[in-house]
């Protein structure tokens, strides 16, 4: 073998060994291990969505393991989080769900988008996996589907509440919608338009779209703002685009309200739009200081220590793992049998550790889906002001 060939083959060998390194498993602890999965997007332009999921889960798992694990039935478990980056590609999301099945996992958080959630459904159903998507299509949660549990508030639940509030309290009459030309935002826009029409609001723009890679939103917004809306709804806006849209709208002289139905991060808004973001309305979980419990503050603390910086989207995303664990505590048989888990969901109730007062964790969704396939996250409609969120009003979903 000459030198060149040797170099080539050793490079190839190196590559293969590096690849197979990834296949080696993790370490075992003294407690039993309960594996919870995550399949979602943690790289690329939408990385923020999945990353806040993963980090919430990892923070909470490390916390639980540090205090000796969680007692489910007769056994104490350490929580291990197994993550899979689907790169926002539905084909990879299926592979991720297959990996979870292979690991013997029955509870998975994610995927983050509509197409991924629809694509993993056959795999989840044939392998006995409950999954908690952050995607809104109703068919995922309505019968005959029964394995998906919506992990947050859907836009068709929060949107009407926000529009009604603004119509009644702030005199909003004309609404304009703008959305990225992708499945999730467009579906959310259509839902928003229907809700606004039902409330008797005048929809002055409902067809304006932008490419998700747009960096300069002035050309997009110029024609929209000519219709002089009182409320500009950023349907399904990505956290990275929200400050840019807000800033462009304000700099073009727009003075009305701006709102969205997805969770946002205060730091991102502050850096991206500064004072111009004041008054921006979004929806979060236990996001405002007034309603946070001590446990939530400790969670934020631990998250910040672990990853250097908190993400306000995690105010909502902290809940999915909590629901899984608490439901399993109530019915330990669910650990290997999602049928038991589903039975428990109907009557499940536990105190909400992240909210002040006597809020409870329970499954909801009867109105929207006809079965309890949604986690009850407090619907905290908040307003951004000077670097943090203020509570506008709190509502519940049934």
């Amino acid at each position, binding site marked *: 073998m000459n030198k060149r060939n040797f170099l080539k083959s050793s490079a190839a060998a190196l590559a293969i060994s590096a690849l197979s390194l990834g296949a080696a498993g993790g370490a075992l602890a003294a407690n039993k291990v309960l594996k919870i999965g995550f399949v979602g997007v943690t*790289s690329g332009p939408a990385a923020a969505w999945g990353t806040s999921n993963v980090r919430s889960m990892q923070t909470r798992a490390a916390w639980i393991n540090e205090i000796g694990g969680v007692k489910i039935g007769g056994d104490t478990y350490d929580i291990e989080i197994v993550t899979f980056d689907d790169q926002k590609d539905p084909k990879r999301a299926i592979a991720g769900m297959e990996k979870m099945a292979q690991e013997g996992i029955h509870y998975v958080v994610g995927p983050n988008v509509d197409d991924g959630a629809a694509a993993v459904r056959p795999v989840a159903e044939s392998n006995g996996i409950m999954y908690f998507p952050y995607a809104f299509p109703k068919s995922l949660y309505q019968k005959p589907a029964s394995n998906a549990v919506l992990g947050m508030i859907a836009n068709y639940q929060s949107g009407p509440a926000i529009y009604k509030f603004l119509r009644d309290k702030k005199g909003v009459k004309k609404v304009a919608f703008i959305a990225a030309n992708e499945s999730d935002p467009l579906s959310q826009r259509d839902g928003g338009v229907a809700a606004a029409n039902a409330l008797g609001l005048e929809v002055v723009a409902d067809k304006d*779209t932008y490419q*998700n890679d747009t960096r300069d939103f002035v*050309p997009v917004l*110029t*024609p929209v703002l000519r219709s002089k809306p009182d409320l500009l709804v950023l349907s399904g806006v990505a956290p990275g685009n929200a400050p840019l849209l807000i800033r462009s709208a304000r700099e073009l002289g727009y003075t009305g309200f701006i709102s969205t139905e997805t969770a946002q991060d205060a730091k991102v808004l502050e*850096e991206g739009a500064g004072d111009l973001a004041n008054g921006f309305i979004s929806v979060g979980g236990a996001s405002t200081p007034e309603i946070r419990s001590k446990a939530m503050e400790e969670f934020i603390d631990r998250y910040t220590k672990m990853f250097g910086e908190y993400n306000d989207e995690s105010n909502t995303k902290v809940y999915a793992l909590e629901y899984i664990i608490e439901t399993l505590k109530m019915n330990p048989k669910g650990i290997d049998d999602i049928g038991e888990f589903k039975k428990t969901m109907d009557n499940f109730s536990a105190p909400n550790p992240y909210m002040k007062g006597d809020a409870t964790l329970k499954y909801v969704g009867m109105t929207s889906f006809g079965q309890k396939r949604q986690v009850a996250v407090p619907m905290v409609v908040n307003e951004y002001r000077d670097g943090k969120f203020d509570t506008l009003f709190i509502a519940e979903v049934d």
Partner: protein
Amino acid sequence: MEQVLANGLYLGAQYALIALGLTLIFALMNVLNFAHGQLYVLGGFVTYTIYGQLEMPFVAALFAAAVTLALVGGLMERFLFRTVLKRSVREESTMLLAAGTAFFLDAIILLIFGEKQRGVPKIVDGVFNWDFRLIMPYDRILIGFLAIFAIAAFVLYMQYSKTGRALRALAQDRVAAQLMGVNVDRYSMIGFALGAMLAGVVGGLLVTITGVNSGIGGPISIKAFMMVMIGGAGVISGAIAGGFILGMLESVGLSVLHSYGDITYLMIFASLMVFLSIRPQGLMGKPWG
């Protein structure tokens, strides 16, 4: 209408500057640099760190971004592209290398700077408002002029400096340039560094307006390709024209096609395809195979 034209001009200036670096590298080495957008993002993050986090002057941050990116570009050429170009049978193979580099930079940037959208304080406050017919924040105006200034400086540099002449000779005919005594390796590296630097400078300039986000490198690269193709690959004037045309197309297109709603972008892209099939080498490209 004034507003639409101004939007287009501003967008065009920044697009043209992005396209310049890409077309330069393409002209010199026939490398379609998939990592161009990532270099732009890196420039943005350097500026973000120095100006936004360390609170040093913006000019210093911009300078640091330019130097860092020139360095990164030079290293990329010397240790990656040069090796592959010399040994590959078909030079398109560098597209795989460029894509690999893009993934690598994406990973590094994501690990170091995180997944969040980042922004810096405004460099100038205030908004220019002409009777609501034309509204333009002062920082946009400033960045727009800086971008045009950078484009002009680059064109003059290419036209009159010794390096610029050597680079142009290299782009025109690699073999002939070599025969005329141009050090091909050296100038390829300089050209690559210059292209990367341009990407870094735009990233640094635009971080003050649109912020920066670790995931946008890929989309930016793709947009830059479009501008280059509209104008004609490997031609500097073409890249500038392509940038301004795409900027105008977006601004005017979005306004004119406003009533078509959802399909605005479909029409923009479809007309781009029609344009390219009528004019297969772009506006001013050489009919290159």
